[in-house]
């Protein structure tokens, strides 16, 4: 048994930059005092805290974190792994995918299915080039676990997960099994409501005048 001396009163690192502002919680491991046994201090403090929080939110909506989802969507990060899309070549607008099936191979949930075919590229140089391309490229989004390994595996930058679409939904499984055309389409434009500021849709609890007196939202 090593160093079993119970809790040692160490305040952690001495460097002020890295010290947490929290108190030493293990110091609370003591019996309740008489006042605390009468429920009074904690209850009063608790009521004061909840009341303060209530008023701050009631009057100023200071801490509200709710987002009104369908109208108002938060920005997802640049690295967000959302629904896939297939990129296109700059030169001819065709799919960049060469049907090498690396993504199919990298996918842990086996949700990508590619059927390859040959295609003849337009004459860029004097030689005619023959290339592979996907005849069908299907991602079963119901199976997809959004791990991003397919994007890592692609040697052609042909598949990306940067559409920002956070959910692929449908009433039937077949609807969320996306084919080549669906995946290559540019993501649908945002709902028109998105452009309005709908953070608190007519949810003002106080009349506007009163709020102007008391302070502004955020």
């Amino acid at each position: 048994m090593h160093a079993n001396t119970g809790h040692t009163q160490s305040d952690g690192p001495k460097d002020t930059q890295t010290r947490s502002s929290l108190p030493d919680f293990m110091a609370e491991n003591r019996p309740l005092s008489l006042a605390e046994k009468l429920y009074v201090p904690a209850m009063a403090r608790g009521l004061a805290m909840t009341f303060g929080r209530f008023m701050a939110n009631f009057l100023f909506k200071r801490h509200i974190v709710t987002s009104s989802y369908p109208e108002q969507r938060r920005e997802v990060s640049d690295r967000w792994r959302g629904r896939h899309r297939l990129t296109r070549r700059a030169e001819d607008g065709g799919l960049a995918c060469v049907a090498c099936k690396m993504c199919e191979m990298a996918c842990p949930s086996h949700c990508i299915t590619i059927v390859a075919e040959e295609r003849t590229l337009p004459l860029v140089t004097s030689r005619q080039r023959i290339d592979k391309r996907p005849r069908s490229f299907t991602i079963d989004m119901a199976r997809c676990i959004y791990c991003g390994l397919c994007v890592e595996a692609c040697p052609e930058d042909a598949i990306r997960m940067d559409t920002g679409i956070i959910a692929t939904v449908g009433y039937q499984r077949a609807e969320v099994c996306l084919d080549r055309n669906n995946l290559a389409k540019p993501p649908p434009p945002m709902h028109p409501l998105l452009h309005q500021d709908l953070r608190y849709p007519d949810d003002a609890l106080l009349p506007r005048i009163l709020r102007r007196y008391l302070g502004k939202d955020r």
Partner: protein
Amino acid sequence: MSGRKDDPRRLWSDPPAGPPPLAEGLKPLGHDELDIELGPAHPAMHGIVKLKLRVEGESIIRCEPEVGYLHRGFEKTCEHRRWTQCIPYVDRLNYVSAPVNDIAFCMTVEDMLGVAVPARAVALRTLLMEAGRIVDHLTCLGASAMELGAFTAFLWLMQAREEWYFFLEHYCGARITTNLSRIGGQPYDLFTGFEAEVEACLKKTEDMVFKVHKLSTRNRIFHDRLRGTGVIDADTALDLGFTGPLLRGSGLDLDLRKARPYLLYDKLDFHVPVGLHGDNYDRYLVRLEEIRQSASLVRQVLHAIPEGPLMVEDPHISLVPKTAVYNHIEGIIHHFKLLTGGHAVPAGHWYKAVEAPNGELGFYLVSDGGGMPYRVRARPPSLYATAGLPEMLKGQMIADVVATFGSINMIGGELER
């Protein structure tokens, strides 16, 4: 470890407080036993688990957890995936703190491969593991508070957790199932404003934890619900395979970060909180204190992340950079080779354990030298905690089930795999 019992700071000597046991042989008036089942769909049974209880009035005579509702064959599945492909599955073990699972799994495979990860990735992993610990403890504390009826505390803590999830999303592109580590290092670099965002998360966490602490810790109702319930002494806890906050709550300071330092932990300054009584209140305090320690650890690492590469620069271990794949035949060959063949992990087996938020998370991996694991075994801390639940609930009341069950923080994903 039995030395705990005569600690002068203990509030009671054995036997621990709690409802008095029923007198043996003496049948009280209207004596009848009732079997009730909590779960599998029950507000307190987060995750899906069923507790079969036999109660006499409100006192529990016997308890039997029935698990398996979330079993999905993780180990079998991983035997048919390449090593890298296992990482998303590992995510789903303890889905609350997925970074810890990812990193632990990758570290185990790296050990087998015998590679050293660059210093920058090591520092980053330390930070992410501590972030995972904070997230997990926030969830556990919040859920326990909610089950005691303090819904406000739950939502306040969830706000702090959301901040961390946003941070994880910024770092790796997903909130919960992060898939943020690879064999050979970290695939994602810091983003712009990384430090500020971590600081903001820490600030929010400390703010919310302090609020909940003020709201709950010294509140007698809360105190009485936790103090003296779910008591387990260190001997029994060790015998039952408890690790992590459960064991430390019982007074044994076993923390693999200290006992078996991995990553940067031997260079960082932190201490391991231990409880005195082994009850729910001690575990609550231990978790609170661990949040504080982890916050300090995150700060220590945050300002000392060295520059340098993030992945091992070995094309047999980590994927070559995309520019090399796009432009060089050598690069694309390595890329294809690693993806199709998988990692050439030498034949043999290996066990490595890290201190996950709930206790010892070990990975026992067997490789036959092919590109796929021969056997993957995760040592889930929750399994042992849940198996020991009946021991903790002996002689308690129905209302203590939720408090105790909350404090062991059962995560169905890792318990049932």
